């Protein structure tokens, strides 16, 4: 049963359509005012959005692109309600980045079918992490491999949260989830601000994240991520732990153990064109770097600075 948000003029919001949808067990929230609707969508996203073309002040386009550019909401299906004339003249689909369209004269049955299809399709493609809504393993792999194949000079960065386990043990899973979500949001926002669509952020699972950005931007991104993390993490810790500067917990034998507070480590693997040809090679370099950066105190990033000399024999495109 889906939660459906309708942002349309009253003409499309006919009583029988709503009744039909509700009879099928869906929840429908209807809004005429785009501004109010968007606020509701952002703070409590529905499963599917149905929006009418040609709303005041071009807000329909604004809303659609805002949602589709939001990494965490990009997978929410959007159906655009268009007129017969729009269908005849066709629309600029780069402007209207929607998943499907429906005519404003469509029957209730058609509307219902399209909604169900859209939702089913969105479940099919999603390997996103349910907690952060970020792309999961298979998307990460695909994205890094693509970048290697296209020989783009990118840096792949492996992020993990240090001393996450003692945090979880002490504060419980739901607060642990908050920290994971916080790291996810920071990564998405910093990468987006520095690199726009050239960057990628994925969530491997648990406290592990991966992002990749153009090589020359890697250092600035890492610095901002660490700066933002350091500013926020105190909000997720209790006063007493902050003051002490470490966690204390007791093991099964009754011994009191001390753990350093939660910090962030980033291992950065620069991938000059042709340095690596396969995702696995990047991962194995990262594993070595991770050990290094984890051994450093506090939140840190560590870049693999070993020089790469392209072997001309192997690859013509590197000379």
């Amino acid at each position: 049963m889906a939660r459906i948000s309708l942002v349309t003029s009253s003409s499309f919001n006919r009583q029988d359509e709503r009744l039909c949808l509700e009879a099928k067990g869906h929840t429908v929230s209807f809004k005429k005012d785009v501004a109010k609707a968007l606020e509701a969508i952002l703070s409590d996203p529905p499963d599917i959005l149905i929006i009418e073309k040609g709303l005041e002040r071009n807000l329909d386009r604004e809303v659609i692109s805002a949602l589709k550019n939001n990494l965490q909401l990009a997978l929410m299906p959007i159906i655009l309600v268009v007129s017969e004339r729009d269908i005849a003249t066709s629309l600029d689909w780069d402007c209207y980045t929607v998943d499907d369209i429906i005519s404003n004269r469509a029957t209730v049955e058609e509307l219902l079918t399209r909604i169900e299809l859209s939702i089913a399709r969105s479940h099919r493609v999603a390997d996103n992490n349910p907690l952060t809504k970020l792309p999961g393993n298979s998307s990460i792999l695909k994205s890094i491999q693509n970048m290697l194949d296209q020989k783009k000079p990118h840096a792949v960065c492996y992020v993990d949260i240090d001393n996450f386990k003692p945090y979880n043990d002490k504060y419980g899973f739901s607060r642990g989830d908050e920290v994971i979500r916080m790291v996810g949001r920071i990564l998405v926002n910093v990468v987006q601000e520095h690199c726009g669509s050239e960057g990628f952020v994925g969530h491997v699972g648990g406290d592990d994240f991966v992002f990749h950005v153009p090589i020359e931007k890697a250092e600035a991104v890492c610095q901002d991520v660490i700066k933002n993390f350091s500013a926020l993490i105190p909000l997720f810790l209790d006063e007493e732990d902050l003051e002490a500067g470490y966690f204390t917990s007791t093991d099964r034998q009754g011994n009191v153990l001390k753990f350093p507070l939660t910090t962030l480590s980033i291992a950065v693997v620069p991938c000059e064109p042709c340095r690596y040809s396969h995702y696995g090679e990047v991962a194995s370099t990262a594993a070595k770097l991770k050990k290094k950066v984890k051994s450093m105190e506090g939140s840190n990033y560590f870049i693999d600075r070993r020089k790469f000399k392209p072997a001309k024999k192997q690859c013509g495109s590197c000379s």
Partner: protein
Amino acid sequence: MDKAEIKKRLKEIQSLPTLPPIVSKLNEMVADEDITAVKLGKVIEKDQVLTSKLLKMVNSSFFGFPQRISTVSNAIVLLGFNVIKTLIVTSSIFEVMQASDVGLFEHSLGCATACGIIAKRRGIKNPEEVSTAGLIHDLGKIVLRSELPEEYEAIVKEAKEKGLYMREVEQERIGTGHGEIGGILARQWNLPERLVFPIEYHHKPEKAPDFKEIAAIVHFSDILIRAIGFGYGGDPWVPALDHGAWERIKLTKSQMREVIAELDEKLVELQDFTLEIKIEG
């Protein structure tokens, strides 16, 4: 109109309007290619409505940081540029801006400034949080102004004519006050208690169940900024200072002199901004 009905009305509030010039300034900024979230934050943190909207969003269940985030700078790190931009593009404004709206805007901004100065002096770890509490302490007045415009007008008028405090007239006419209304809304929006209590108890800070120190600073700053005459708090008089609150945050004469000197300086800096808002309005 009674308290129960007001509570019901509060549940339906999606967003509150703010001053048109602020929104148009932010819209212009958004169009600039080099704009950053941090720069937008500098303007947003001067407006109580946009600030509370931002905090509502970041503390919502979707973003997943319930009652955790209390300052604009932390909110923008988590929300990111795109969400902030959308908030700005879709924010609602007062259809007719009145002089008292600008007065309240200045009062809130001035109170926030005073809160920040005092919090820093008292060595509070996160002074920005205390200035946020000061900024949004009169959120309840915006609710009255936009949701119950007729009642609000009558309250303002009666307070003026009879020489009463607004909160006295509110109590009498609607059975509750702007402090409580703001508190209810802030709680409903999932804001941290470190903000909710100071809003709710800014006229009786010692009654706050927790965060009495923040409530006392907001209470004192609210009075101080009226006494200085920056903005308009809605009452004909400067209200009396709560004895217990003063004992809690007591400043010596020479400390007070320093606070006022620092505040004066900051208010002069703010005047450029408030003037711009007034002229465009």
